[in-house]
């Protein structure tokens, strides 16, 4: 269980002058500007949930994760990991959490992978039987057995990430923090990683908090998402609700004769937005307000569609729309 309350992190960054003269000035006097990386956020993650922690770059995702791990101290507010404050009792919390920072490995670079696991076994005091069981489980779901005897520096990016994930799970943590675990991976590796996270969650009831820019990760894994922007939570809830907030939005992508264009095409109703993408027409509408059937008829009859694809709005579009709305609101305020 993770309880976060009114969490704020303010970084003091020295204001650097630009150019050489600015640098010389910095040498003698230094001014700081305050950056509120995380700004008064609160949420609770119950045991066994997989939460997607998403938002644009610089929204404060990694900062929050680092505070939850105890390697950054909150400016104000509190974090409790199973009732313990991570920055006060870091060592105690460390026993029960696993962390992967996608950009950095925690494995020893020069030695065969298996040796890293042997050291981790001692660090986390894993009993022999548990260790064997975990290695078997992780070997299977992450498919790492094949390269256990290779030094980490010889592994491919995908292999290394799987090895890193395994290393973060070896001590059966109750909570797993994954900061961009699929960054830079190919589709097959992503798939493998998602399956492994699912398997871990089902088998051991591990709580998972993950940040990602890949919306497929979110749709595959997360029952709940927390959407962060400029250090503030702008949405926290189930994925389905987020979609519903936008109504039952569907898109029809039509292949139409060359002379049919978005601007000149006959209009069915103001409910249906018509746009053109790559020579195809895209119709967007809320199926709760205007029946799908009617739109499909309109497409074939009035727009002379030759082919058609029906899709629900993707979570990526939803997030994009929310962030755009936020941006617009900010702009208005200013």
């Amino acid at each position, binding site marked *: 269980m993770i309880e976060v309350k009114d969490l704020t992190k303010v970084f003091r960054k020295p204001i650097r002058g630009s150019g050489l003269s600015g640098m010389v000035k910095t040498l003698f006097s230094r001014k700081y500007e305050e950056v509120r990386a995380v700004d008064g956020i609160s949420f609770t993650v119950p045991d066994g949930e997989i939460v997607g922690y998403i938002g644009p770059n610089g929204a404060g995702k990694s900062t929050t994760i680092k505070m939850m791990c105890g390697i950054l101290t909150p400016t104000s507010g509190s974090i409790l990991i199973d009732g313990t404050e991570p920055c006060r009792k870091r060592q105690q919390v460390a026993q029960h959490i696993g962390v992967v920072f996608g950009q*950095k490995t925690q494995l020893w670079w020069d030695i065969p992978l298996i040796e890293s696991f042997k050291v981790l076994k001692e*660090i986390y005091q894993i009993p022999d039987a548990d260790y064997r069981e975990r290695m078997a489980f992780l070997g299977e779901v992450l498919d790492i057995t094949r390269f256990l005897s290779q030094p980490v520096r010889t592994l491919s990016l995908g292999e290394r990430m799987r090895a890193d994930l395994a290393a973060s799970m070896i001590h059966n943590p109750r909570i797993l923090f994954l900061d961009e675990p699929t960054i830079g991976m190919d589709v097959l590796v992503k798939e493998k990683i998602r399956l492994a996270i699912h398997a871990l969650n089902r088998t051991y009831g591990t709580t998972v908090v993950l940040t990602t820019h890949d919306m497929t990760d979110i749709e595959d894994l997360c029952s709940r998402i927390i959407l962060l922007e400029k250090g503030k939570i702008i949405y926290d809830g189930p994925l389905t609700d987020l979609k519903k907030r936008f109504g039952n939005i569907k898109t029809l992508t039509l292949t139409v004769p060359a002379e049919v264009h978005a601007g000149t095409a006959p209009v069915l109703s103001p409910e249906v937005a018509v746009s053109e993408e790559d020579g195809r027409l895209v119709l967007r509408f809320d199926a709760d307000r205007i029946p799908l059937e009617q739109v499909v008829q309109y497409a074939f009859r009035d727009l002379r569609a030759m082919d058609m694809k029906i899709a629900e709005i993707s979570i990526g579009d939803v997030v994009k729309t929310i962030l755009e709305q936020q941006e617009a609101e900010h702009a208005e305020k200013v």
Partner: protein
Amino acid sequence: MRYVHLYFTCIKRSMISRLEYKKDTIVALFSFFFSNLCSLAAIYFILQSIPALAGYSLAEVGFFYGFSMLPISLDHLFSDEFWLVAYRRVQNGDMDMHFLRPVPVMFQVFAETFQPEGFGEMILGVALIIVCASNLTVTVSFGSIAVLTVGAVFGAVIITSFKVALSALAFIFKRSGPLLQIIYNFSNYAKYPLAIYPAVIRMLLIFVLPFGLFISLPVDTLLHGTHDPWLLCLAIILCAAVFFALAVRIWTFCERRYESTGS
């Protein structure tokens, strides 16, 4: 007990890493002998042009040099990783890893590296001591053996304490390598008899950066019986205790203020 076991597991890991770089280890060993050869050559060249250095013969100056290698090599064996902490690990974010593990950070840093080069240094030091001593008339007593042993072992504790305390500053300032380097370099000055320095510097090397206390004074005691060996033993042990306690306090203080870099 758990930590003893864990230490050996980590050390084994460190040795496996070293074996991955056999060639580098050989180069390191070569450069280490070469470096000492250069320093000894410099001393030799200087002493060639004068009859004696402040009353100390070439063999005596060589003895100082050889003995200084013992505490330095002992420290070298166990605490080499602190250099990396001071110079780059905090700055490049590699330190986070240690803060995410359920083991004290200082222990992890000690357990990260074991430098077998230290043995080479120790052997060279002992060899130099033997060569120089055979050209000298020294009366070996129980007390002088004791003071040399205490000087070597507790001297190593004092050097390690400096490394712990100063590398901990990197937790706050991100990089403290140069500072550590300079303090550490003062050990070079204890390679010569204290007599060549004016009183202020002698005091500095005994009371502030006590390299002279555990290197020069024990050797002086052996060669010229300048001090009561048992009193000197006591002083060195007390000094080591104070420095180590202080180093641990500073480390704990700085560790609590550690913040991961970037966001």
